[in-house]
């Protein structure tokens, strides 16, 4: 009685604690949470950029359907209303080149920003040439624009700076709004104020965009709306959008799949037990286990990832086995429960199976891939809890007589089948050879080493994103030079040096161009040099007289120019604060970032768009060109982001493989110590290894590359399958035919629930969940089949 009270009290206390932990945990679906956590400094910067960089904050907006004029009108209306929304830093749709604030900033600081400001530009022949060009411009089609500037800026520095900011590729424009190259979509770019890692804020921003679009649609003049068939629709893309959509997808999938597999398993168990009450009691260990898993992850990690929850579905399939063993195997003759007998003869096997699984999952814990470590902890906590509840709580809650059907006849039939299959056991020994052949002959690589394999975003959506970025001339920056230095000033100066060092490559067409924060905020070094290149008022006045001798300009009409140059000479240097309120501020913040106590200036490189080297950048050559940049604590490194991230992931995949093998070795040791017989260890492990090989072979033949989550699936096959193998091993020693029949029947029931749970997962549209499902469902089934076929013949002979 006392043990019963203690067990129930402890259980209730645990449930309360678990519920509190789970309720207060932070949940995330940010894909980058699954990115590795402790890479090299350069890779850490990369992960930071993926998570919080300016690209991560960008929402690409496409308006499809209707006609060009309607789309452009919608684009303008949408931009207008979103620009009034404080959640957005800026909205670009091509409807005005530069804002008034930008123009004022450029005009006000033209002598510090213009790359043309060099010694000699404001005296003698240099000044005469610059003025002649300015006069030429007055007579050009830009005359209207240039005329207002001429009196104060006759050398055209404002237009030069604006030219510096022009990008090589520009979006198409249809009816005054940015458009895709094929002209079928109007495009906008929203720069969200919140970080791309803040999924909630991104979701709110997406909602604001949709609402503004609906309002703009409703405000269309009626004839335009009526003519516009098909109706205009909105489509969003971008890193933040993907995070939001993935979170929704994973949540939806996790709910849907848990519901489906729970329902299937419940219906199936109801058919077996023929008692709703037993069914409900049998679910207690599962629910406790799932809660324990979430609570453990919440306590062990700061954030619970959505995928970990999705993975919880799988635990239903596995931990339900424990109660099945208790309920089915503990069934005495005539429906009377043989509690003590089960504890004596079956519990040790269940316990050993549980330990085997725990050891398998322990191997995931040291993984530096946070997602994998979470899955490991979740599974261990869940399994241990489910086993403990089955052992100590469930028996206290079960009535003495279980109102359920006897499964012994089913077990008898199964044993007979197994005996017939046993004759074909030699065929299994061909399996390793066949699997090896399949893996060797398969055309595609067995392992997928790209991080993209884990991406739940559909290939169609990824293509749309890539195409839209290309249309906007904002193709994903793949190659970037990272200049790291102690201070922002040193980093900016380093970025300027890097740009200068790469200029010959740009001139030769090996690079289409480079960008840098220093274009918008030059280093103090450069600003001082430009100030030094400016003459004082007296000198400039004298130079103007000489320089205008052959030009139709009176020096007196350029008094404003003389004043401005004199003022710029002694003006305070430009700082980041001066950029506030301009579009350049975001550019500088994106390309000059504090990182690990130092400052990194990013210099994105644009690959050539045509010619023999189109879309490729010779990294070795870039790195060699950068050699003079690295000195005095400043370091310049060129990074291929895609390659770095893939290398990062491949590293973690290999680590996970090593850890899994270590886990397998640990299982081997555990079994050897417990079973104390090489033959028995072999008989227990052989079906598991064969099942794993068969699953590998099928994937290789079908050309489905395996990723890190498949590895988890293979580990699960061993973990779950070990229960079957151990029970077959035990059944061989059982004298009572009825008991043996029940054991085998319980294994089939447990196996089918597992297959149902994981089978449902295999149909998930989230690749990582589907990976686990498509590995474990067939693997578990094969593990049972192989265990049955390989079981010791004398067990069947006596049946």
């Amino acid at each position, binding site marked *: 009685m006392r043990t019963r009270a203690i067990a129930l009290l402890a259980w209730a206390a645990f449930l309360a604690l678990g519920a509190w932990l789970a309720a207060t945990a932070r949940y995330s679906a940010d894909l980058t949470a699954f990115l590795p956590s402790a890479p090299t400094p350069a890779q850490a910067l990369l992960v930071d950029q993926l998570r919080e960089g300016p690209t991560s904050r960008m929402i690409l907006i496409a308006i499809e359907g209707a006609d060009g004029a309607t789309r452009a009108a919608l684009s303008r209306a949408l931009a207008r209303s979103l620009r009034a929304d404080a959640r957005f830093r800026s909205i670009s749709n091509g409807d005005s080149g530069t804002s008034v604030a930008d123009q004022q900033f450029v005009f006000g600081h033209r002598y510090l920003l213009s790359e043309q400001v060099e010694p000699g530009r404001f005296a003698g022949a240099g000044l005469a040439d610059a003025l002649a060009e300015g006069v030429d411009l007055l007579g*050009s*089609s*830009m005359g209207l624009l240039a005329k207002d500037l001429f009196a104060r800026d006759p050398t055209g520095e404002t237009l030069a700076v604006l030219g510096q900011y022009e990008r090589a590729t520009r979006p198409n424009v249809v009816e005054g709004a940015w458009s895709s190259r094929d002209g079928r979509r109007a495009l906008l770019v929203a720069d969200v104020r919140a970080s791309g890692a803040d999924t909630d804020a991104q979701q709110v921003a997406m909602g604001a965009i949709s609402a503004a679009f609906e309002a703009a649609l409703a405000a269309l003049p009626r004839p335009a709306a009526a003519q516009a068939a098909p109706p205009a629709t909105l489509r969003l893309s971008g890193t933040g959008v993907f995070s939001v959509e993935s979170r929704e997808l994973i949540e939806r999938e996790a709910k849907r799949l848990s519901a489906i597999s729970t329902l299937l398993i419940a219906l199936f168990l109801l058919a077996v037990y023929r008692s709703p009450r037993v069914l409900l009691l049998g679910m207690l260990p599962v629910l406790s286990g799932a809660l324990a898993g979430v609570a453990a992850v919440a306590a062990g990690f700061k954030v619970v990832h959505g995928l970990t929850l999705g993975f919880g579905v799988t635990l239903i399939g596995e931990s339900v086995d424990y109660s099945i063993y208790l309920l089915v195997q503990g069934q005495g003759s005539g429906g009377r429960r043989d509690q003590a007998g089960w504890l004596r003869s079956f519990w040790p096997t269940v316990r050993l199976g549980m330990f085997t699984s725990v050891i398998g999952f322990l191997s995931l814990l040291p993984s530096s891939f946070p997602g994998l470590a979470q899955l490991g902890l979740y599974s261990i906590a869940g399994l241990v809890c489910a086993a403990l509840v089955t052992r100590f709580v469930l028996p206290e809650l079960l009535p003495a007589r279980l109102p359920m059907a006897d499964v012994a006849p089913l077990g008898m039939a199964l044993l007979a089948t197994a005996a017939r299959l046993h004759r074909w056991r030699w065929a299994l020994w061909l399996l390793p050879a066949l699997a090896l052949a399949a893996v060797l002959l398969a055309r595609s690589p067995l392992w997928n080493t790209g991080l993209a394999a884990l991406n739940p975003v559909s290939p169609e959506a990824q293509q749309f994103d890539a195409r839209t970025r290309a249309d906007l001339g904002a193709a994903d920056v793949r190659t970037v030079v990272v200049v790291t230095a102690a201070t922002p000033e040193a980093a900016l100066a380093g970025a300027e040096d890097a740009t200068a060092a790469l200029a010959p490559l740009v001139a030769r067409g090996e690079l289409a161009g480079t960008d840098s924060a220093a274009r918008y905020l030059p280093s103090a070094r450069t600003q001082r040099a430009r100030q030094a290149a400016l003459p004082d008022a007296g000198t400039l006045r004298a130079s103007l007289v000489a320089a205008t001798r052959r030009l139709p300009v009176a020096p007196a009409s350029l008094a404003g120019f003389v004043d401005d140059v004199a003022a710029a000479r002694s003006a305070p240097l430009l700082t980041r604060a001066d950029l506030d309120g301009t579009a350049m501020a975001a550019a500088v913040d994106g390309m000059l970032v504090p990182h690990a106590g130092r400052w990194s200036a990013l210099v994105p490189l644009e690959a050539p768009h045509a010619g023999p080297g189109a879309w490729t950048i010779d990294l070795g050559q870039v790195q060699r060109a950068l050699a003079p940049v690295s000195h005095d604590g400043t370091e310049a490194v060129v990074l291929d982001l895609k390659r770095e991230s893939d290398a990062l992931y491949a590293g973690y995949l290999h680590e996970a493989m090593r850890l899994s093998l270590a886990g397998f070795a640990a299982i081997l040791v555990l079994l050897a110590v417990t079973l104390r017989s090489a033959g028995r260890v072999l008989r227990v492990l052989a079906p598991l290894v064969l099942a794993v090989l068969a699953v590998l072979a099928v994937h290789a033949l079908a050309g489905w590359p395996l990723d890190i989550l498949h590895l988890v699936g293979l580990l699960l096959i061993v973990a779950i399958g070990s229960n079957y193998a151990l029970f077959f091993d035990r059944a061989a020693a059982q004298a009572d035919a009825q008991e043996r029949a029940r054991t085998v029947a319980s294994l089939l029931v447990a196996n089918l629930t597992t297959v149902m749970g994981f089978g449902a997962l295999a149909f998930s549209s989230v690749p990582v969940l589907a990976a686990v499902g498509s590995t474990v469902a067939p693997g578990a089934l094969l593990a049972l089949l192989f265990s049955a076929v390989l079981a010791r013949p004398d067990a069947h002979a006596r049946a």
Partner: protein
Amino acid sequence: MRTLSWSGPLFALLCALAGPAARADEATARDALGELLAAVAARPHAHASFVEHHYLGILRRPLESRGELLFVPPDRLEKRTLAPRPESLRVEAGQLTLERGKRHMSVALASYPQLAPLVEGIRATLAGDRATLERLFVVGYTPGNGTSRSEWSLALQPRDAQLARLVRELRIGGHGSDVLRVETLRGDGDRTVMDITPLDPG
């Protein structure tokens, strides 16, 4: 035909505003404008050379530039300056593209309500797009007098008040179906005169 059907209601409205006394004269002048625009628009395309003089207050003497013009109805207009410095200005489907030396600029006309009417005024005249002309400008038409019946001039005054401060008037003069002179009068007294010589009519 499209021009007429569009301008119908607008014409009626203008007549009503002008009052009964002006009605007869207006109607005559406007019919003649319709004829002129139809004649200009009837040309499949136009290729011409031009000489442009800029008279700017800030400069002591006018600037001269010369080059070629090309118009392909209904909406492609190209101005190729050859001297003193090569430059190309192209307007097509509402998109303005400027190439000058290394500089390449491409903007949507609709984004520049201050600039668009100037280009549109010339384009609409060449295309015979009377509706657009009258939407953007107060159109004054002076048909040729007795001695040279076929000489005419159009005075286009921007309806947009902001634009009117920048550009007071666009004067387009011609002979028969040829446009021979485009004069831009700026709000600040500066002006640009472009003289046009057709190269291969029709």
